[in-house]
């Protein structure tokens, strides 16, 4: 018998089974919808966590304060050295004038400070380099490098007045801890919830096939090959995954739209709807392939139990 004819028959029986076993299909699709919904929730949660962490990380930097008589060449030397470090994400130069303007702006309501500043003949502020690391844990290495340069007095090192990392160290360490812990907890929660919903979906499909165990027995007796028995159930499993995936993708539209504003108030810049709309192809691929794979694999394993020689 041709492979094409077999495939056509298996696909037709799978579709017929999905439709005629309406109640069983409804139960399986409902549970799989919940599973895929948990998965999509974990994806959005993960993206929100990442966005929030990136946002927090960006608020941390190490400032290198130069002496007021530091030359441009010395500052450029230090800047170049920093930019050459693999840990460094960016280095921003703030000139003495910019530093003074920022200072004035920040203290514009503090007349006493402004007056004291006016009485000084010269700009008391030195130029600054704002250094951002790729990861918060890397600030210490950068700060150590800078202090070594400062004490050695090599290149522009002699022009460094102070590195503010050690003043910020406690705050940075705490943030590093929070970020690490959040990531770890996020991963554990994702794995546990993912596994739990996977088991529930798998068992639901197993129950759905359990109701057909006599049918599988009859198919065995009339001489149907393994794949001819298994195929329609796997097609039905794939349909459970496909329909559930579609439902979840459709539901995510209004849910992310509605949840965006409250989430944004809580998490800052992260916008759930923008994430959903901007990453739709990726989310579609993950949800659909996970749903279809789960449906097909669960059916495969469940039927195997009732397949005899």
């Amino acid at each position, binding site marked *: 018998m041709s492979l094409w004819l077999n495939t056509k028959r298996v696909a037709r029986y799978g579709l017929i089974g999905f439709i005629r076993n309406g109640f069983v299909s409804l139960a399986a699709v409902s549970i799989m919808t919940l599973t895929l919904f948990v998965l999509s929730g974990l994806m959005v949660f993960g993206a929100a966590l990442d966005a929030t962490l990136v946002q927090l990380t960006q608020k941390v930097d190490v400032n290198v304060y130069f002496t007021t008589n530091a030359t441009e060449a010395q500052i450029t030397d230090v800047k170049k050295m920093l930019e050459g470090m693999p840990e460094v994400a960016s280095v921003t130069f703030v000139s003495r004038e910019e530093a003074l303007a920022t200072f004035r702006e920040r203290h514009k309501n503090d007349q006493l400070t402004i007056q004291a500043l006016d009485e000084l003949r010269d700009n008391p502020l030195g130029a600054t380099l704002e250094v951002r690391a790729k990861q918060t844990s890397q600030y210490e290495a950068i700060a150590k490098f800078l202090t070594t340069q400062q004490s050695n007095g090599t290149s522009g090192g002699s022009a460094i007045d102070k590195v503010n990392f050690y003043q910020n160290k406690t705050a940075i360490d705490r943030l590093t801890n929070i970020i690490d812990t959040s990531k770890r907890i996020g991963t554990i929660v994702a794995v546990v919830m993912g596994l739990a919903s996977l088991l529930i979906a798998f068992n639901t499909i197993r129950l759905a096939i359990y109701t057909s165990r006599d049918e599988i027995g009859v198919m*065995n007796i009339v001489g149907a090959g393994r794949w001819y028995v298994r195929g329609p159930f796997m097609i039905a499993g794939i349909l459970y995954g496909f329909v559930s995936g579609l439902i979840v993708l459709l539901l995510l539209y209004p849910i992310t739209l509605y949840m965006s504003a409250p989430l944004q108030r809580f998490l800052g810049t992260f916008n759930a709807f923008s994430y959903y709309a901007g990453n739709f192809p990726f989310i579609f691929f993950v949800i659909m392939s996970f749903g279809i794979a789960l449906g097909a694999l669960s059916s495969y394993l469940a039927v195997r139990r009732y397949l005899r020689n």
Partner: protein
Amino acid sequence: MLLIFWRMIQYDKVTKIYHGGQHAVEDITLHVEPGEFVFIVGHSGAGKTTLLKMLFAEVLPTSGAVYFDSRSIGELSNAELLRVRRNIGTIFQDFRLLPTKTIYENIAFALEVAGKDDDDIRADVPHVLELVGLADKMWSFPRELSGGEQQRVAIARAIVNQPAVLIADEPTGNLDPINTHDVLEILKKINNLGTTVLLATHNRSVVDAGGKRVITMDQGRLIRDDKEGKYVL
């Protein structure tokens, strides 16, 4: 082995002990020739069903061997076993139809697994349903049919591939006398066309009216084998 060669079905010192030590069948040796009609009788638990199930390897013997067309069933490859099963029609007391398939699809399924193409199936299914008097029920589901009708569908499915052997395990157990008579008449017709029929039953009147070979079992043992027997227990 030479003797086995030309015999269609041969049970050779077959014993089946289920888990828990229950002896379902004990040391049975018998053979069945092509075209025979054989009643297998005995009380419930006598081992009739186990004996029949061993012919299509739904149950495997603990010792001894069952031969079909001179091949030991237990030594067949998976593909060979499937071919044997397609050459053995089976009918059960509880009909065992596929509940989510229509009557047409139930019968077509047996033809599909045998590798028939769609044109043959479209021709054969109505024909076999006409033979069992159910042509008008083609698009019904099994649950919409009476017990007698369901059993006739099961017969149609069992014979549609024109098998060499038809196994019927208590086929009239759930039927009233009129349906019992109808089913029996159909089985006799099939036998007259050359199909070997093995029919397990504990219905005395069915056996006594048959005038066929009767194998009597008791507590897993073969206690009588009469060429034109009666129900004696």
